[in-house]
C-alpha cells in the first residue's frame, strides 16, 4: 500500500497579486474599459477644480475671532460682510453667523444646553452600546437605555417639567428638528412595521386583511400627501377651534405610519427568507407563537433585513425635508429662511452645499454603521 503524502502549500505567483494587477483588472481590462476610465477622469477634471476653487481657494473664511470652547481663534480682523465676500467663491461667514439657526431654529438662546445635552447623550449612546457588549446584564442596560433615552430627550427638549421652561414645538428648527422628526419617525414606526409584517403573514384572516390594506394603501400614497392630510385635512375633522393636537405631533404621526408600511414590507422580505424548517423546529420544541417569533424568526429575519431597514431609514431621513411644505422649519427650510435676511441675500448656494455636506456625513455614517452591524450579527457564514 502506498503512503498518502500531503503536498506543501505555496503562495500564488507574484504576477497575480499587487497594485498593478488591480489597475489592470479594474480600470484597463479592455479597450472599452480604458476609454471609460479616461472619460471618467476627464469628467472629474471638469467638476473638481472649479468646485474646489469655489469652496476653498476663492472662498472667504473671514470669520473674525471665534470663541471655540474658550479658545480664541482669530481668522481675520473682523467678520466679512455679504458684500466684501464677493461672488467668485463661497461666503462661509454666512454659514457661521447662521449656524445657530441651522442647528436649533428659533429655540431660545438661553436654553441651548438642553438640545446640546440630548446631542451629547445620543453620541454617548453609540459609545456605551459597544462597551457593554460583553457585560453580563447587557440586555437590561440596553433595554433601559431604549426606554429612558427617548423620555429624557423629550423632557429636555420640550420642557414643562421642574425648572425646564416649556419650549413650544413651533420654535424647534434646523438640525434639531430634522433629527427629532427622523429619529421619532424611525423609532416609532419600527415596532409598528414589525407587527404589520407579522400581521400580513398571519393565519388570522382579519389581521392579515387589515395589515395588507394598510400597507398597500399607505405605500401607494406619496409622503407629501400624508403630510398635507395630517396637517390641514385632519384638523377639519376635529372640533373647530380645538387645536389641541400639535402640528409637529400630527406630522410625526403621519410620518411614523408612512414609514411603518415601508418597514413592514422590508421585514416581510426578511421573514420570507427564513426557511420553513426554522418554523417547524420552533413548533416542534413547543414554543408558542409569540416565543417562536421573538426568539427564532424575528432575530433572523431582522438580521437579514438590516441593509434594507437602514436603506429605508436613510430614505425617510431625506424625506423629512418635505416637512417644510407644511411650515415646519427643518434644516433645509433654514436655507430659504436665512437668505431672506436682507443682510445675506443671495447666499442660497452656500446654504444648500452646507446642508448637503451635513446630510451626507450623517447618512453615510448611518450606512457604515449598518455595515458594521451586519458583520457583527453574521453568525451564519463565519467559519
Amino acid at each position, binding site marked *: 500500500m502506498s503512503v498518502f503524502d500531503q503536498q506543501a502549500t505555496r503562495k500564488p505567483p507574484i504576477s497575480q497579486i499587487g497594485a498593478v494587477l488591480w489597475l489592470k483588472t479594474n480600470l484597463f481590462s479592455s479597450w472599452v474599459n480604458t476609454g471609460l476610465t479616461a472619460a471618467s477622469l476627464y469628467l472629474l477634471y471638469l467638476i473638481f477644480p472649479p468646485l474646489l476653487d469655489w469652496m476653498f481657494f476663492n472662498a472667504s473664511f473671514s470669520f473674525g475671532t471665534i470663541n471655540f470652547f474658550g479658545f480664541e481663534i482669530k481668522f481675520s480682523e473682523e467678520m466679512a460682510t455679504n458684500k466684501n465676500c464677493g461672488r467668485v467663491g463661497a461666503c462661509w461667514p454666512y454659514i457661521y453667523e447662521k449656524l445657530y439657526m441651522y442647528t436649533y431654529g428659533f429655540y431660545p438662546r438661553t436654553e441651548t444646553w438642553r438640545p446640546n445635552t440630548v446631542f451629547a447623550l445620543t453620541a454617548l449612546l453609540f459609545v456605551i452600546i459597544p462597551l457593554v457588549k460583553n457585560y453580563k446584564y447587557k440586555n437590561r442596560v440596553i433595554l433601559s437605555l431604549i426606554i429612558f433615552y427617548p423620555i429624557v430627550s423629550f423632557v429636555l427638549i420640550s420642557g414643562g417639567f421642574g425648572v425646564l421652561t416649556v419650549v413650544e414645538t413651533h420654535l424647534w428648527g434646523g438640525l434639531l428638528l430634522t433629527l427629532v422628526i427622523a429619529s421619532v419617525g424611525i423609532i416609532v414606526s419600527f415596532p409598528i412595521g414589525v407587527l404589520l409584517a407579522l400581521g400580513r403573514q398571519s393565519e388570522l384572516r382579519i389581521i392579515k386583511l387589515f395589515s395588507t390594506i394598510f400597507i398597500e394603501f399607505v405605500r401607494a400614497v406619496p409622503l407629501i400627501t400624508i403630510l398635507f392630510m395630517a396637517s390641514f385635512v385632519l384638523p377639519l375633522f376635529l372640533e373647530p377651534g380645538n387645536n389641541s393636537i400639535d402640528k409637529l405631533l400630527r406630522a410625526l404621526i403621519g410620518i411614523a405610519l408612512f414609514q411603518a408600511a415601508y418597514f413592514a414590507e422590508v421585514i416581510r422580505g426578511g421573514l420570507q427568507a427564513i*426557511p420553513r*424548517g*426554522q418554523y*417547524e*423546529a*420552533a*413548533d*416542534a*420544541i*413547543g*414554543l*408558542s407563537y409569540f*416565543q417562536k417569533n421573538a*426568539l*427564532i424568526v424575528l*432575530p*433572523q429575519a431582522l*438580521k437579514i433585513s438590516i441593509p434594507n431597514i437602514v436603506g429605508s431609514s436613510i430614505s425617510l431621513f431625506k424625506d423629512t425635508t418635505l416637512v417644510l411644505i407644511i411650515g415646519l422649519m427643518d434644516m433645509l427650510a433654514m436655507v430659504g429662511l436665512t437668505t431672506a435676511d436682507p443682510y445675506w441675500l443671495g447666499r442660497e448656494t452656500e446654504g444648500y452645499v452646507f446642508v448637503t455636506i451635513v446630510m451626507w456625513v450623517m447618512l453615510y455614517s448611518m450606512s457604515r454603521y449598518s455595515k458594521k452591524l451586519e458583520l457583527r*450579527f453574521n*453568525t*451564519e*457564514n*463565519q*467559519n
Partner: protein
Amino acid sequence: MSTNKNKKNIIEISQLNKWYGEFHALKNIDLKVKEGEIIVVCGPSGSGKSTLIRCVNFLEKFQEGSILVSGTELTDDAQKIRKIRSEVSMVFQHFNLFPHLTIVDNLTLAPIWVHNETKREAREKALKLLDRVGIKDQAEKYPNQLSGGQQQRVAIARSLCTNPKIMLFDEPTSALDPEMISEVLDVMVELAKEGITMICVTHEMGFARKVANRIIFMDDGQIVEENDPENFFNNAESDRLQLFLNQILTH
C-alpha cells in the same frame, strides 16, 4: 421485544386520512405504538412516511381519523398541542438548528422558555447531553461552524433536552455525507437501548435490522406491510415490498 408485550400503547393512530389539496397523502392509517418500542418506517419517496410522523406532533394537520399521544387526542387546541409537543420531539432531515444561536443556546431554548427551567439547570443538562453525543467541546460555536454529522448530533441532543417520551426521526441521515452517517446512527442506537419510544423514517436498513422492533413499509399513502426485522427482510408477503427490498438491497 418480549418486554414490550405488556406495556400500554403510547401512540394510537386510527383511520387517519390526510389530503394536500386534492392529493390523498395518507389513506386509512392504523398504527399503535407501545411504550419503548422502536419503529422504522420505510418506503419509496412520496409514500407518505414523513407526512405520517409529522402528523404525530401536529406539524401537519389531518382531515379524518384520530391520533392519541399518551392518552391525549390531537386537536386544534393550542394548549393540547403544546403539551404533546413537550412530550414528543423531532429530529429533522435538514437538522433545522437555529443558526443565530450557539450550540448550547440551541439546546437550552426549550427548557428555559417552555419548561421554565433556570438558565443554570438547562445549561448543565445541555452540556451533559452534548457530552453524550460527543461534541461538548463545540458548545459555544454556531451551528454553521460544525459538520453535517455534528449538526445532526446537536439536533438529537436538542430534542433530548426536554426529556421527551417519544422521539420522531424524519430521515435523519439523508442529508449527510456518507462519512458522517455512522456517527449519527451510533447515537441513535445508543438511544434505542435506553428505552425511549422511537419512530424513525429512514432508509438505513442496517440500522433497522439492528434496533427496530417493527418495520413498517409504506407505499402510496398506505401501510403495505409491517413485521419484525427478521420476517420483514426474509419473508416479504407482498410483491411491492419484495420489489422495494430488491431495489435497495442489491447495491
